[in-house]
């Protein structure tokens, strides 16, 4: 037994976030915690580490076996030290492990009560044998390889990495720890299909080594591929748990059923969407697709294969009849590397163009260029034939960008609803009262109730913040909305409703959408056309 939890309860401000959760996990076992956004997965996951967010009180019993616990948090950017090169930190961890191993004389001894203790190890970090340097080097290389992180990124600071790359750094950190238990909170949301599949393979390998895994995820395909057992959470309680196959294929609880049933159907109205696409253009869809035999009748098998419905990708140029947004020969990069080498695209009013590409291929960079946050080296961006204003507030009235990292995009000191409302005040000239009302309504539409939104960002779940960020952008009533992985943290039900909302806005208000996503289902559901960026 690696982990035993009973009667776990977390409360904040008299409200239970998690209640009565009991879990058990044996070595080499994988437990998936699924459930709606805001259902308490992250809170539970932290509790397994003996941690909790500020203002949250946790009671109950958690017993953990001796040995390291690795944690892959939901928001990698918030746990990466901004002033440390990622490689340096990895080396440091490896060195601490090395020293720790010598001090401990090996790990995995007798079990002890973990309780809430932090279980901090005294790792020597000064001394080291002759071989230590090489050994550390070797371990870091190994972890980085397993996390699919290119070695040349190790010299960078976190802010110089793409969202997916940051996530892989955090993953590499976890792999270095040589743990007995890994708690992974949405470990692949930022990854393209290929890497995601590889990471899933790595997790399988870990499992084979006897490492227990707690997987908190919305990604049912991954759950299906990895989990031995599944626990379904709803409103802070485990409503159903059992062997993966049983729960996923024969859910007993209503909520589980609806969660599994909610899946995305492609739009039918858009003619472009029907065009067949070449297989090679979206290879990732192939890879993420779970093995046919694992797919239950009522779930993904019924979903049309993405490649059947995905719109036509064009890697260099997409043109539309009456382009609202037109990008021509956009070249952009960072100091260290060129990223975009001549990207052109156009989108008509009410059209949705999906931007695809491997993690690190420059999707976010492109989006930031359009939003005016990144200055391109060359190329033009026009809206209705006119170049976009350089002045950011003027531009922001027309083009809004929903950040990939929702948590980082909020001011931690003010309430979420207040921050959301400011968009209407600043960009639409609303009075504070009007803005507050508008914000309330919009937050309602994305599924956030008033008390939740009235809290500070730290007290919202990842998915909740993603929705708040979307609401904030929508209040600007922009002509063009750029969505950077806005559904990665959402469960299928909420995801569907969000996509419906976007679809509605697009149809009714002629909102032009630029959709960045790794999720082919989302692309298939919403996009008229696809732009694929090549990895640089």
């Amino acid at each position, binding site marked *: 037994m690696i982990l035993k939890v009973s009667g776990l309860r977390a409360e904040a401000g008299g409200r239970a976030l998690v209640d009565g959760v009991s879990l058990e996990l044996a070595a080499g076992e994988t437990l998936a915690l699924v459930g709606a956004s805001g259902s308490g997965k992250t809170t539970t996951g932290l509790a397994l580490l003996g941690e909790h967010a500020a203002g949250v009180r946790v009671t109950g019993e958690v017993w953990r076996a001796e040995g390291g616990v690795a944690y892959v948090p939901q928001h990698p950017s918030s746990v990466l030290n901004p002033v440390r090169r990622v490689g340096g930190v990895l080396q440091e961890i490896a060195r601490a492990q090395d020293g720790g191993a010598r001090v401990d004389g090996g790990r995995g001894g007798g079990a002890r009560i973990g309780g809430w203790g932090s279980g901090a190890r005294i790792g020597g970090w000064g001394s080291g044998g002759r071989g230590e340097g090489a050994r550390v080097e070797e371990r870091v290389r190994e972890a980085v390889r397993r996390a699919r992180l290119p070695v040349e990124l190790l010299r960078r600071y976190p802010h110089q990495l793409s969202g997916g790359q940051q996530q892989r750094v955090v993953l590499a950190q976890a792999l270095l720890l040589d743990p007995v238990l890994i708690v992974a909170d949405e470990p692949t949301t930022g990854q393209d299909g290929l890497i995601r599949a590889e990471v899933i393979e790595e997790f399988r390998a870990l499992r084979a080594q006897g490492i227990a895994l707690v997987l908190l995820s919305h990604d049912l395909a991954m759950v299906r591929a990895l989990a031995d057992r599944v626990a379904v959470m709803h409103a802070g309680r485990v409503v159903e748990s059992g062997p993966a196959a049983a729960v996923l294929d024969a859910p007993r609880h209503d909520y589980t059923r609806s969660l599994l049933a909610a899946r995305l159907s492609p739009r039918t109205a858009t003619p472009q969407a029907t065009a067949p696409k070449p297989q090679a253009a979206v290879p990732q869809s192939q890879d993420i697709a779970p093995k046919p035999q694992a797919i239950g009748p009522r779930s993904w098998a019924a979903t049309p294969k993405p490649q059947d419905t995905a719109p036509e990708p064009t890697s260099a140029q997409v043109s539309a009849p009456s382009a609202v947004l037109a990008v021509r020969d956009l070249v952009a990069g960072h100091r260290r590397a060129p990223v975009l080498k001549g990207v052109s695209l156009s989108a008509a009013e009410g059209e949705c163009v999906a931007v695809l590409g491997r993690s690190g291929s420059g999707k976010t960079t492109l989006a930031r260029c359009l939003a005016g946050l990144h200055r391109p080296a060359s190329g033009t961006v026009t809206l209705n034939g006119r170049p976009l204003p350089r002045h950011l507030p003027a531009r922001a009235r027309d083009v809004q960008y929903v950040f990939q990292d929702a948590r980082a995009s909020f*001011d931690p000191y003010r309430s979420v609803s207040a921050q959301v409302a400011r968009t209407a005040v600043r960009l639409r000239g609303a009075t504070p009262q009007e803005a507050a009302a508008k914000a309330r309504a919009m937050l309602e539409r994305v599924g956030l109730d008033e008390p939740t939104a009235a809290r500070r960002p730290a007290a919202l779940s990842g998915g909740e913040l993603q929705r708040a960020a979307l609401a904030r952008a929508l209040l600007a009533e922009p002509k063009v909305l750029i969505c950077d992985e806005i559904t990665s943290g959402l469960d299928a039900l909420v995801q569907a409703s969000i996509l419906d909302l976007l679809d509605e806005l697009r149809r009714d208000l002629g909102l032009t959408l630029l959709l960045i996503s790794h999720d082919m289902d989302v692309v298939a559901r919403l996009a008229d056309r696809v732009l694929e960026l090549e990895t640089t």
Partner: protein
Amino acid sequence: MRRRRGFAVVLLAVPLVLALAGPWLAGTPEPRGVSFAAGGLLGTDFVGRDVWEQVLLGGRSVVVVAVLATLLAYAAGVPLGLLAGLAAALAGRRWVDEVLMRPLDLLLAVPSLLLLVMLAALLSPGPAALVGIVALIGLPEVVRICRAAALQAAGGTAMEALRLQGETWWRRAIGYAGRSMLPTLVADVGVRLVGALYLVASASFLGVGLAPDASDWAVMVDRNRTGMFLQPWAVVVPALLIVALSVGLNLTFDRAAVRK
């Protein structure tokens, strides 16, 4: 915890109460005696006045002038530092940073002694001038510290999100960057206040601001130093009051920072 709060509160309350109520408590001035002699509650000072009476009279100007000067330095320095820091973090605006900081560098590079002598010669003495001078000398440092703190806050995604909301500069700077560097400022202000206090004292020696025999704790400490071993109270009491004031302030600020 209550006992601890008591400590900080007492430290702060004694000088503040003396400063505010002192002038009412001080009676009519006694005739002067021999300088640095015993007699009265705390003996006499460098010009033979009663030290206790001077202590009672001397808090108000300390509190008023030093606090005003520090506030003024912050009122001017924080926006400038924020402006520079936020601009420095923005690729297109770095010139704003340069335009603000390089002239301030000049001000920093001019020895403050020269500045003081100079201003003493040019300005008519008076508390207002003094507040201005002390603020001016503290300004570049405040700006630099704010700039460094703002730079850290300004690089983040949250700042970009605010810009995309069309948020005003003030809201971004004060509301967000300012808020996130508040602990830094709070740590700095408590210390800077003391610096201002003694600058006031040395300025008075050069003929700026307060009269050299003004009833002011800092001036008292400065002027009575020659008799430090002869009549220690004339130095020790006002110095202790200043120490209590600043330690009390800093401890209180620390506690406030914890509560947030």
